[in-house]
């Protein structure tokens, strides 16, 4: 190991550091975390402690020991950076002023060493970052995409294989939210007017710092409400001659049109793209995102300098001058010897991790349009609109309690509080069928059913035996539907249907009688459409159904996601309840309201928690 001439070192142990600015490549939280972990490597083997400070906590920023900064080319210290790659960062040995500071070249793509880090919002992956590449419908994606969606919203898979795992989230996009500014994170409003001119995309106009912004109302001139547009790290170029810009696809290069990043024209085989539609004409370009450099590893190395270590010639050591990505613990024996030569070993007991003096940074406020996750989030696997669904209006609060009339007739001897857990509806993972019959929601499972009492303190009553109430029915049902007009109740199981009018039953009859072909192997559910009309669903298709003639119109077949965007495609039960349609998949439901002919998912929730009101 080497130290700087004269063994330059800090003469106190409680070191403070300030992150003066942030790269757009990574979420701020990830940057703060990378720096904290880098400092923790050194505090683990020395008596040093590291505390992140913020301008509002210190009297004079000059008193901060280590100032961390991102910059381009000449960034004020007379040691210019060199564009993408090559020189990544540098730092100064301990001492006052610029001494001890660490600078990072923002022409690099900062990541965690394994490609861009794109945080997601909403979806069903709890904000996990995108996984690139990922496959969707057999195709590989290395950036966010709107494929599979009709609303153009950008999404990504948070695992390598969306087709298998169905884990996804929405990518940063100004249509989803904005950052900072004064509009509480509301999404952009396009078009908006600024100084009388109309803008239909984010702009840097009016700013000297080049940050892309937008208005969150139709007129910035009038309302003065704005926010910054989130960075699309997955398709923003680095280096070249237009860093920070996004690839423009398709673009023309040497007369050919390209819709992806290419290696053509380069000897070094690196991927690049044009940032305008015509490179031949405009000559504007940049490098496409690659694995990037691990901010954690580079920071750990630079902080070694900031503490007094110079470069070593041990290739495996952290203080070796060349960048090398590793997922192992980066400190080498040579590094430990060096730093302990300056500060001695860590005194027992366990070291304290770096502390921050400010409260946790607040997550950006969710947009008023809650796409998928209601404000009060239950256990993390709460699902949301799948890639086939649009963003939709947020939930309007819990379902309102129904009228408080007395429950209608039912086998009164049913215990109200089940003694045997198997009798407890809250223990049922997935119900066979759910239907509103006589204004009460019925939950069917394996020959038994529960009836939701309405009014204050809604509770599931039961279980009752299906055979006691509907003797002809089999124990296993696929779906049930009560026609609000005639009060006839249809029960479906496999390719059979029963129709109960009061206590009298017609069936079983084959689905062929309803005009359904042999390829329809079961009925997922029926939704009433008024005046004796309904929609009959089977898997991803549905038909118009005439309740009076009890037949479907074969010509009317359509696919579910056309009319009901936002619901999962593999729904296993569909029913109507209080004028809203419910699409169930696994333990969850997607509630669709049909305000002014537009079907929109307005709530996603648990069948047991949100419908059955289980504790």
């Amino acid at each position: 190991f080497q130290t700087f001439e004269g063994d330059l070192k800090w003469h106190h142990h409680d070191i403070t550091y300030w992150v003066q600015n942030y790269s757009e490549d990574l979420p701020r939280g990830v940057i703060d975390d990378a720096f904290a972990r880098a400092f923790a490597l050194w505090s683990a083997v020395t008596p040093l402690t590291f505390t992140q400070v913020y301008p509002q906590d210190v009297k004079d920023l000059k008193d901060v020991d280590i100032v961390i900064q991102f910059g381009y080319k000449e960034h004020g210290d007379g040691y210019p950076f060199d564009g993408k790659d090559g020189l990544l960062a540098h730092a100064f040995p301990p001492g006052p002023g610029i001494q001890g500071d660490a600078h990072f070249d923002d022409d690099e793509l900062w990541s965690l060493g394994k490609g861009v880090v794109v945080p997601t919002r909403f979806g069903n992956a709890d904000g996990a970052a995108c996984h690139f590449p990922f496959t969707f419908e057999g195709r590989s994606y290395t950036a966010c995409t709107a494929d599979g969606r009709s609303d153009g919203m950008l999404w990504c898979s948070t695992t390598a294989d969306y087709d298998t795992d169905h884990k996804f989230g929405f990518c940063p996009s100004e249509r989803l939210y904005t950052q900072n500014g004064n509009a509480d994170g509301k999404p952009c409003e396009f078009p908006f007017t600024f100084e009388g001119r109309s803008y239909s995309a984010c702009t840097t106009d009016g700013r000297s710092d080049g940050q892309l912004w937008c208005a969150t109302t139709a007129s910035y001139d009038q309302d003065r409400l704005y926010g910054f547009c989130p960075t699309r790290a997955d398709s923003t170029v680095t280096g070249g001659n237009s860093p920070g810009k996004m690839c423009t696809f398709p673009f023309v290069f040497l007369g050919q049109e390209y819709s992806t990043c290419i290696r053509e024209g380069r000897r070094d085989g690196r991927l690049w793209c044009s940032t305008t539609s015509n490179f031949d004409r405009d000559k504007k370009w940049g490098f496409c995102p690659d694995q990037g450099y691990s901010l954690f590893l580079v920071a750990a190395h630079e902080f070694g300098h900031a503490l007094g270590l110079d470069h070593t010639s041990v290739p495996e050591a952290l203080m070796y001058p060349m960048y090398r990505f590793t997922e192992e613990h980066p400190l080498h024996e040579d590094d430990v010897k060096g730093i302990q030569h300056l500060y001695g070993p860590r005194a027992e007991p366990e070291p304290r991790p770096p502390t921050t003096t400010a409260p946790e940074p607040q997550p950006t406020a969710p947009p008023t349009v809650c796409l998928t996750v209601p404000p009060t989030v239950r256990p993390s696997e709460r699902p949301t609109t799948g890639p086939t669904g649009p963003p939709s209006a947020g939930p309007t609060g819990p379902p309102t309690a129904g009228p408080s009339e007395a429950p209608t007739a039912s086998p009164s001897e049913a215990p109200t509080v089940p003694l045997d857990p198997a009798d407890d509806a809250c223990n049922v993972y997935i119900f066979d069928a759910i239907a509103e019959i006589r204004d009460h929601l019925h939950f069917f499972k394996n020959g038994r059913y529960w009836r939701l009492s309405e009014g204050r303190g809604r509770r599931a009553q039961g279980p009752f035996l299906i055979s006691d109430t509907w003797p002809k029915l089999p124990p296993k049902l696929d779906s049930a539907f009560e026609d609000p007009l005639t009060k006839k109740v249809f029960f479906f199981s496999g390719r059979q249907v029963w129709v109960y009018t009061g206590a009298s039953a017609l069936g079983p009859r084959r689905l062929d009688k309803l005009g359904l072909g042999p390829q329809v192997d079961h009925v997922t559910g029926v939704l009433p459409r008024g005046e004796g009309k309904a929609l009959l669903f089977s898997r991803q298709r549905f038909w118009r159904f005439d309740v009076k003639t009890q037949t479907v119109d074969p010509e009317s077949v359509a696919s579910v996601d056309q009319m009901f965007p936002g619901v999962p495609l593999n729904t296993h039960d569909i029913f109507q309840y209080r004028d809203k349609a419910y699409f169930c998949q696994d333990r969850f439901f997607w509630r669709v309201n049909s305000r002014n002919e537009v079907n929109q998912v307005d709530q996603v929730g648990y069948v047991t928690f949100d419908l059955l009101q289980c504790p």
Partner: protein
Amino acid sequence: APRPRQPTFVVFPGDQQTNLTDLQLAEDYLYRYGYTHVAEMNREKTSLGRALRRLQQNLALPETGELDNATLEAMRAPRCGVPDLGS
């Protein structure tokens, strides 16, 4: 039989690194990281030899004193900007 298309290489505006020759890259690197003190070197390779040998020693590369491929590759690798030698 169709002949493979000859690749066309383009000089990309603002792309400093690909526009340098190997010698220019070496001179710039040796000066930037403290192995030579005078940026303008005469172009005799031998005068680079001593600096190259010191670089190779410092970076645990084979010490040939030549601008060989391993050394050029090391010079093109991403690295820290703090000079290896000098204050």
